[in-house]
């Protein structure tokens, strides 16, 4: 299940690094351990898939800093924070930075492993979502300006007849463009086309009409 995924473990306590590494490896997970956030960031590439288990007693970098650095690298790697204390401000900051999880030490083994597995699933989900969004954007980029116009109007619920009247072109021309749009976007139906258009028009640099 996790063939291509790695649990990145950052811990400045040697005994914790070793014991947690062993535990996760025993659970069938691939682990790479680092003794500082800096060492991890140097070794980590945005394409690396998995999750990060972060346990720092005297961090040279806060959880938020690390997450910002990850986002700057273009990675949305899920992060699990381990903490010895229920320090509320740090917790809140971690969650605001997009952390999915926060655990207080000592944590039961099964619970920790369950959280790690969840984080790996979350990473897979985020990656699939990003890959799909990239594909949709690539398709969208192939549309001509006229086709984009028609896509936007069609996803607003206008019929071809209405679009033809609105743009002052013939019904047949609209139908032709519409067919091209569906073909280029590789949409199965108008509902899927609407979803794709929403992704393109919400996130992005493409001008709305």
């Amino acid at each position, binding site marked *: 299940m996790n063939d291509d995924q790695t649990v990145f473990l950052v811990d400045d*306590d040697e*005994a*914790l690094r*070793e*014991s*947690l590494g*062993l*535990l996760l490896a*025993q*659970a069938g997970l691939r682990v790479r351990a680092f003794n500082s956030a800096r060492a991890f960031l140097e070794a980590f590439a945005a394409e690396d898939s998995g999750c990060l288990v972060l346990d720092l*007693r*005297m961090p040279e970098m806060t959880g938020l800093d690390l997450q910002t650095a990850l986002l700057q690298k273009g990675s949305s790697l899920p992060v699990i924070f*381990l903490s*010895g*204390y229920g*320090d509320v*401000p740090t917790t809140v900051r971690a969650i605001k930075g997009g952390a999915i999880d926060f655990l207080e*030490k*000592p*944590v*039961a*083994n099964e619970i920790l492993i369950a959280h790690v597995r969840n984080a790996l699933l979350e990473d897979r989900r985020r990656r699939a979502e990003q890959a799909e969004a990239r594909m949709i954007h690539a398709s969208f980029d192939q549309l001509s300006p006229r086709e984009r116009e028609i896509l936007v109007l069609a996803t607003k619920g206008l019929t071809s007849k209405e679009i033809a009247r609105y743009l002052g072109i013939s019904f047949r021309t609209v139908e032709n463009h519409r067919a091209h749009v569906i073909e280029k976007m590789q949409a199965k139906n108008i509902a899927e086309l609407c979803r794709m258009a929403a992704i393109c028009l919400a996130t992005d640099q493409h001008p709305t009409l």
Partner: protein
Amino acid sequence: MDQQAILDALPAEVVVLNRTGHIVAVNEAWRRFAKENGGNPALSDGLGLDYVAACRGLQGKDAAEAGAIADGLVALLSGRLPDFVREYPCHAPDSQHWFALRAAPLHDPAGGAVVVHLDITERKLAEQALQQARSQAAQAARFNAVGVLASALIHELSQPLSAAGFYSGTAVSLLEQAEPDPEQLSRVIHGVEEQIQRAATILQRLREFLRRREMRMRPVAIDEVVAHAMELAQGFAADRAVQISYLLPAPGAVVMADAVQIAQVLVNLVANGIQAIDSAEPTRRKIDIRVDPRPREIEVSVVDTGPGLSAELQTQLFDILAMANGSGLGMGLAISRDIVEAHGGKLWVDPDVIEGASVHFTLPLTQTREPE
């Protein structure tokens, strides 16, 4: 449009001035206020009165404030100021009041301005109450160092406990395999043992720190004592996002002292600083420890970026603490001073600091040892 009716409908006191600062209109609220305050009867309807001159003419305790208002109005009327706002106290004999004066130019070729007085007493009282609560909290926090050891315990013990737990889980998982590797298993169980030992050592050190006992004087390197105290306070500081730095270490400086007691003093001073910072939320959250060697003694300073100690508080500091803190945990400054004096040193609070609080103590130097 009946401008007077509009003015009268406004709850704030409103005065309209012409270019020369003479009153051209007042509203009902203004008249009522002037009457209630029994001021200059000319002011109560006041039409034609030179308002700026009336401000300047005020005598007594409000003279300075009224003068500043007059200056502001002149600047506004001459176009040098785009608008003018000033909050001022206006206390009656039996109650406190504050007002905000807000003046804006009239967009009329003839010039002039509209001046509004708003009663902001409620807001001011709320601000004062908050300020008072803050400073009380900041002072109370200084008398309490209990949290430090609890934090140290949580931070330090969670490490070996976690590691021991992970080793145990690994051992169980290894045993569930078809053919467990005895060597690996032994190594993992040994890990559990080591971590339990580590926890025991932490408990032993804390126990020693807490115990009331006879003084045990021996030559100790001050750097080691500072390092030990910082380690103990580190968790407490990290929880409150306070940074502790050891500036100016004194390598080789050796004092004849009970190392545990001097560490207690340092932890107490650092804890006071952390709590003061935490209660006041300054932007800088730092505690600096420094050691200045002198010919016959060393001076240790603990300086924080908290709200500082008022002169009044400084005089009571040691007495209050002597009464309030008898426990082994919350030692307070009084006990710290006793410990330092038993070592032949002095402990004092620096009265002249710009930022935060600055506490110092000296310890007699026994000898100077070369750094190892």
